[in-house]
């Protein structure tokens, strides 16, 4: 309620009571800071934090994306002319950028559904009464909290040409091998990321599962519903808000893919087959001194992810 609405309401109440009183003059400080000025003190640190570390960089990046910009030492004054949509045109005409978006589409098409289904299934199993439940919950969470560099080294060892997986597969091993196979490399990365992040999404689903009232299950059982029917008609719809969160988060994180093509496949190899937009942003913006190109690419990526996330919400949250 705004201060103005509050005073009007107070005046009317005064009339109703039959004691018409002149409106109480309000002190200017109160008028400025509202009913509970202490609230401003509470929100200010986080507002400043957001302004400095989120809003300011985003606005600066947007400005950079429309200018011919490069980083300079403080005090160095160089012209940074407005170039309109030139940086965006450069981004969209770059074949490697286009390739990276196709790669990400392949990645998301595998990673998001796989993450959602596997996380829900595992959460349901881990929610049931089973021996060593605590151990299994920790085990699935472990890859999520393990440093990527260490885990990538293990996957390199597993999936290299002479690695454990190919040794087990023998003649069935793919040619060329996993990490240098243009067709298999993105699905492999999608599988790796699914495995690495699964623990986090399992926790989200576990929390959602524990909030489903037991009575629903009991009623369904009394009505004669089988396990599959209970799963499909009670569990899945009851965790729908968690599913939306899992899908949106998996999409956003997946679109920001960086570590795996950087470390696992040596800068987006083979031949750009695992290149991601964020890796190109890093190469152009940080390594090659082209932050204007990188900023424009960043906003193209933001627009794509935003559109995808909105679509996901529309599809998942409809009744």
């Amino acid at each position, binding site marked *: 309620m705004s201060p103005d609405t509050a005073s009007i309401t107070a005046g009317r109440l005064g009339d109703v009571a039959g004691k018409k009183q002149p409106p109480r003059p309000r002190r200017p400080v109160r008028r400025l800071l509202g009913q509970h000025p202490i609230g401003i003190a509470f929100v200010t640190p986080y507002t400043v934090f957001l302004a400095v570390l989120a809003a300011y960089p985003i606005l600066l990046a947007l400005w950079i994306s429309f200018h011919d910009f490069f980083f300079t*030492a*403080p005090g160095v004054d160089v012209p940074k002319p407005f170039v309109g949509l030139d940086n965006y045109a450069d981004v969209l005409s770059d074949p490697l950028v286009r390739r990276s978006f196709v790669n990400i589409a392949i990645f998301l098409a595998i990673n998001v559904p796989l993450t959602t289904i596997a996380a829900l299934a595992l959460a349901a199993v881990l929610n049931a009464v089973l021996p060593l439940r605590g151990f299994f919950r920790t085990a699935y969470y472990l890859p999520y909290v393990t440093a990527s560099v260490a885990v990538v080294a293990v996957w*390199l060892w597993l999936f290299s040409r002479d690695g454990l997986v190919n040794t087990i597969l023998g003649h069935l091993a793919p040619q060329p091998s996993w*990490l240098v196979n243009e067709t298999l490399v993105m699905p492999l990365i999608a599988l790796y990321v699914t495995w690495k992040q699964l623990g986090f999404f399992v926790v989200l689903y576990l929390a959602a599962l524990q909030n489903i009232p037991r009575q629903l299950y009991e009623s369904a059982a009394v009505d004669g519903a089988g396990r599959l029917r209970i799963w499909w008609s009670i569990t899945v719809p009851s965790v729908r808000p968690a599913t939306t969160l899992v899908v949106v988060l998996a999409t956003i994180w997946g679109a920001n893919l960086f570590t795996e093509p950087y470390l696992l496949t040596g800068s987006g190899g083979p031949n750009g087959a695992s290149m991601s937009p964020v890796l190109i942003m890093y190469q152009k913006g940080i*390594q090659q001194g082209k932050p204007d190109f990188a900023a424009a690419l960043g906003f193209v990526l933001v627009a794509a992810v935003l559109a995808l996330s909105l679509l996901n919400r529309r599809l998942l949250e409809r009744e």
Partner: protein
Amino acid sequence: MKRKATILSGLLVGSLLLTACGGGGSAGGDSANAQRGPIKIWYANFEPEIKWAQQMIEAWNAEHPDQKITGQEVPAGKSSEEAVTAAIAAGNTPCLIFNGAQIATPDYQHMGGLVSLDSFPGAAEYIESRSGEKVAQQYKSPDGKYYQIPWKANPLMMFYNKDIFAKAGLDPDNPPLSTYQDFLSAARKVVAKGGAKYAIAPAPTNEFYQSFFDFYPLSVAESGGTLLVKDGKAQFNSDAGLQVANFWRTIYQEGLAPKDPVSTTTDPFAEGKVAIRSAGPWAISTYGKLHWGVVPVPTPNGMPANQTWTFADAKTISIYSSCKNRGTAWDVLKFATGEEQDGKFLEMTGEMPLRQGLPDKYPDYFAKNPSYMTFADQASRVAEVPFVPNSIGIWQTFRDAYVASVVFGKQDVTSAFDQAAQKVEQLAGEK
């Protein structure tokens, strides 16, 4: 409500302005060059270099209590260049960094992050007399000034495993590795009979700097020191460049080198799985227990060792524009690259100071450590990466074409290199 919004907006704008004003300025001009006082320096995160830097700082501080040096390793980042770029933009670089790379120097200069060393009296003469004019010229900016001093090199040569060579029936003391044909024939034998999984294992990945360790040393050897780009024109699509590329392509096609990315935490040469690797003198201490030998990089028809060029893999030192006590910085730079400290650097790290006549200057060291003598001799015939604008973009463009055509054979080498050359020349021409 509107008022509250105004107050909040005011707070935001205020905080943004405070942030914007946070960067430091830099003192400029001759007065800054004469200014003396305490300075900060950064050095590489490499144990032998850390020890050398610490003794150098101690020696300087003992003599200059009013101009003390505070040293630290280059802050962590994906690469030193990334950390330095961020520091330049933030205005908090130290006065000196003992880990510069020529590939990044054009960008630092472009950012206004470096002090021209020519602004100190006698600087150009000092640099050229220390390193020799021919070597020093490679480190000069296209504007004719020095923004870095060539400090030390790790000339790339071919290490080989003598045990594997002997097992393959090759002479371990005089291995046939000087011509491309000999090299290929030896590579086939070490894989077929020597028990090596691969003959050689350069990283087959797309990082821009990987070409320093496969294509580039052979290219400068073949051309007698010609750089990747010269006078704005790409050189790698010349006959010499294509010959080098086709040599490597044969190696990949025949499975003599792996196409898979290799973990950075393992070294297949040290494990005896690979028979040959290109490396600088830093590797001598690493491969101490291995029975190894070292030869110059191959050329198409073979070349005497004393005429073969290679990639320098050098590091440089620069004075950064946020430095206030530049007079002290210049004095420290000369102290750290003087004859005495160069000798200590050689002794403690095994890397070659870029000083002419190295074997004659430190005869005792080379008498005691004959394995380093080969590298000392090679250090007088080294080529750096060219000093051109968009240097990293140029190398990335080249690397992408190389990996596609040479490693994976997805494209014909000539057409891939011609396409890359067009892009590279465009990048080299940008200001």
